């Protein structure tokens, strides 16, 4: 009996420890922030996207094959729905050089394209991403009509995790003309850059 109890106790301890360890790993992964470059505080003109002078402009950089980005796109959809058309949204999908267009036109592309009021474009070889300091998929920049950067960061609470989050709330508040203390949030997602570049430019 005692032997059985000991064996069980050991078994359960091992089980709980393993699960605990697993959860810690998962949470660490989920909450591992992506890198972010330095975002221009003023709108950069002369690019393929233009600032909307009548309303706020939102730019999201996305990796077309990043699973985590689906959550960001989902949150973008919710965000735009709550902003009541006060935001002009652009989603720029990374397209590597020498890759066909269908490499970029993934399910995420379709999802983004399906969001009302969203302009979807290819970002050939991360050209715009580099200009706007985006290094992680799901990275969002929010400019007012005057081209001033109001917010930057991710709109998911963790990696690939849908649901209420600080970034999304901040943008909605800004779009609705409310004040918010949050102007920057971590971004969770795949790196837009190569592994080596990503490590080299990892932010925070």
């Amino acid at each position, binding site marked *: 009996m005692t032997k059985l109890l000991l064996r069980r106790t050991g078994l359960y301890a091992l089980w709980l420890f393993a*699960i605990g360890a697993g959860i810690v790993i998962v949470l660490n992964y989920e909450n591992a922030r992506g890198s972010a470059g330095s975002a221009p505080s003023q709108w950069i003109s002369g690019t393929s996207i233009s600032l909307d002078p009548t309303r706020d402009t939102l730019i999201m950089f996305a990796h077309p094959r990043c699973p985590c980005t689906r959550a960001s796109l989902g949150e973008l959809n919710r965000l735009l729905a709550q902003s009541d058309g006060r935001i002009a949204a652009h989603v720029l999908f990374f397209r590597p050089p020498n890759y066909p267009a269908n490499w970029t036109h993934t399910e995420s592309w379709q999802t983004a394209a399906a969001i009302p009021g969203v302009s979807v474009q290819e970002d050939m070889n991360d050209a715009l991403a580099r200009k706007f300091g985006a290094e992680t998929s799901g990275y969002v920049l929010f400019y007012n009509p005057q081209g001033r950067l109001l917010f930057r960061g991710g709109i998911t609470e*963790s990696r690939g995790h*849908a649901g209420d989050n600080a970034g999304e709330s901040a943008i909605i508040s800004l779009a609705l003309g409310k004040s918010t203390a949050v102007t920057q949030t971590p971004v969770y997602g795949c790196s837009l850059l190569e592994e080596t570049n990503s490590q080299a430019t990892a932010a925070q």
Partner: protein
Amino acid sequence: MSSTPSIVFKDTVAFSNRTIELFNEQRQSIIRHTSRLFSWLMIFQWFFAVGLAIWLSPRTWAGMDSRIHPHVWFAIVLGGIITSLPVYMARKYPGETLTRHTVAVGQMLMSGLLIHLTGGRIETHFHVFGSLAILAFYRDWKVLLSATVVVCADHLLRGYFWPQSVYGTLEAPIWRSFEHAGWVLFEVVFLIIAIRKSVSEMLLVAERQAKQEEMNEIIERTVAERTVELTRENAERRKSEARLAHSQQIARLGSWEWDIVNNKVTWSDETRRLYGWRPEDVEFSMDTCLERVHPDDVKKVKDGLAEAMRTRQPFRTEHRVVLPDGVQRIMSGRAEIVANESGESVKMVGTVQDVTDLKQTEQALRQSEDRLMQAQKMEAVGRLAGGVAHDFNNILTVIGGYCSMSLQTLDKTSPLQKNIAEIQNASDRAASLTRQLLAFSRKQVLQPQVLQLNDVVHNMEKMLRRLIGEDIELSIAFDSSLGRVKADPGQLEQVIMNLSVNARDAMPRGGKLTIGTSNVVIDQKLKFRNRTLEVGEYVLLSITDNGVGMTDEVKTHLFEPFYTTKGLGKGTGLGLATCYGIISQSGGDIHVYSEANSGTTFKIYLPRTDALAEAAAVADASVMPAGNESILIVEDDPAVRRLAVVILGNSGYKIQESNNAFEALTLIRRNPGFDLVLTDVIMPQMSGKELSDKIKAQCPHTKILLMSGYTDDALAHHGVLDEGLLFLEKPFSPVKLTRKVREVLDAHSSTEMLRKNGGKLQPS
């Protein structure tokens, strides 16, 4: 009969215990079942999680570089870890409390994993609620608590340590954790209510099952008791049937049933035996059954059946049955008609009894009654004959005696010779008639002796040939090894002569008379047919003619006295009655076999004896021996006394006479030297037998000769003379008297006389 079982729970504690036991059994069964369900479900979930991870996030990217997404590894490794212990416990220990709590914890963890794998989709959160519902299958609210604790702990811990992972904010109030857990608790509360209700119902079911078991037990006990009762009743019924069958067998009484509609007759075992059917014969048509009935009785039975069906009155019949071995039995049948609701005769139920023995007994009884009546008639006639014979023989003695003396003294040429001879013949015929009267009424005195029947017949052969005449052939067939009989030879001659005369009269145009002798053994079988004879060895004398024979009517009255078919004046009707009387008195029997125009056979059975035959005394019938001894004659009839005095006086004897016994005794006292006392038997005051006894007492050397025409059992038992007595039958002739007296006197002693005559004196 047992009463209807009622459910009475005598032991409520036992009932409660049984209810709890059943409840626990059911609960354990559910728990085990649910554990096995979760073991599969969790394995499925694990695979699902891996599949989901591969589908949703197969790879993670960095620019154009990609690798397997950590979610896939999380699903495989962490999912496997989460699944492993609950599945192991569910498989190994499905009924243990720890198992279901482990399952609950694992399931909740798996919910968390799935939520993570789907990017926190709100829809995936339903897995938590679904899991709680499935965990409720355990009917154990504590399991739900374990699951709830995991969920709450997850929210509280993560809400505290990583609030953004739960609430999307870097900081969140604690009540938000309770808000999230509240929805889980909301479901759990209702699930607990449902579980409690379900448990309550399970208890109710267990209670019902316990009641059902109790009732089943009562029913089974009742069935067992009833089975025992039925078994006993069946055994008793079988015993009763066996007793009934045995009783039927003893009574030779069987039952039968006729299905009139289908014409099928069924029967009991005894009926089958009575009718000689085989054991494999179970039913016949009525016509087939009637094949066993004697052909002469079939119509009677059929008519009886038809009459019973027509009138619906009870059926009664008595008929003969011919069994396969040819034996005939007499059956008495009774039956009644059974009608259906419409009043139609559909069945006849009846019995049949073998009454052969009864009928034979009745027949024997009737014969006995007939014999009794005949005996009574014979007794009456015998009394009459005896009464007449005593005086009549005295008279005939006197007539015959004086005739005889007259014929001796008269000159042969005297014209009176013829007249006196006629008187003597008439006297002889009268004596013969008297003898026959005594014979058929069995009142005559027989003086039997051991003899060879062949000799008797042989001695009569010449006389018989003269008697039957030349037209009738006499054939005699002797059995050379014939046994001896003890009988009165004179009476036997009388029988043979009577039957021969009857045979002659039955063959007026000639024919053949056959007299034969043989030995016969009457065994039990023959005794059955010849009821008057006892088992033993017999000598048979048969007298057969091929004359006109007899009808049954004649045979019925054949041996009755004064019954004759010969017409008035031609027969006395005493001949066969005399024969019957003589043979019966001799311990034998006489049977007659005859059919009209086919002749007649009389068979006379006489008991065989092993004693040696006695030599017949031969003497000259015409010589009157003389003597000079002193003789006392005692006779109440003066005429007879005077005759005897004259005859014996003429023969030289010294005679004294007396007319009664007392006077005779006085004379003997005065003169005890009498050589012989010749005394009548039947006398007033004192019989000759008493006188004889007194004389023997006083004068043992005095010889005594008794004489009588009818002794009235004074000297004889059943007509046979008592041992040691010397007897002279009346009527006697002078020759007979003198010869008998001389014979007695010449004997040295009575013993010698007895020895000489085998215990009896030869009638003179």
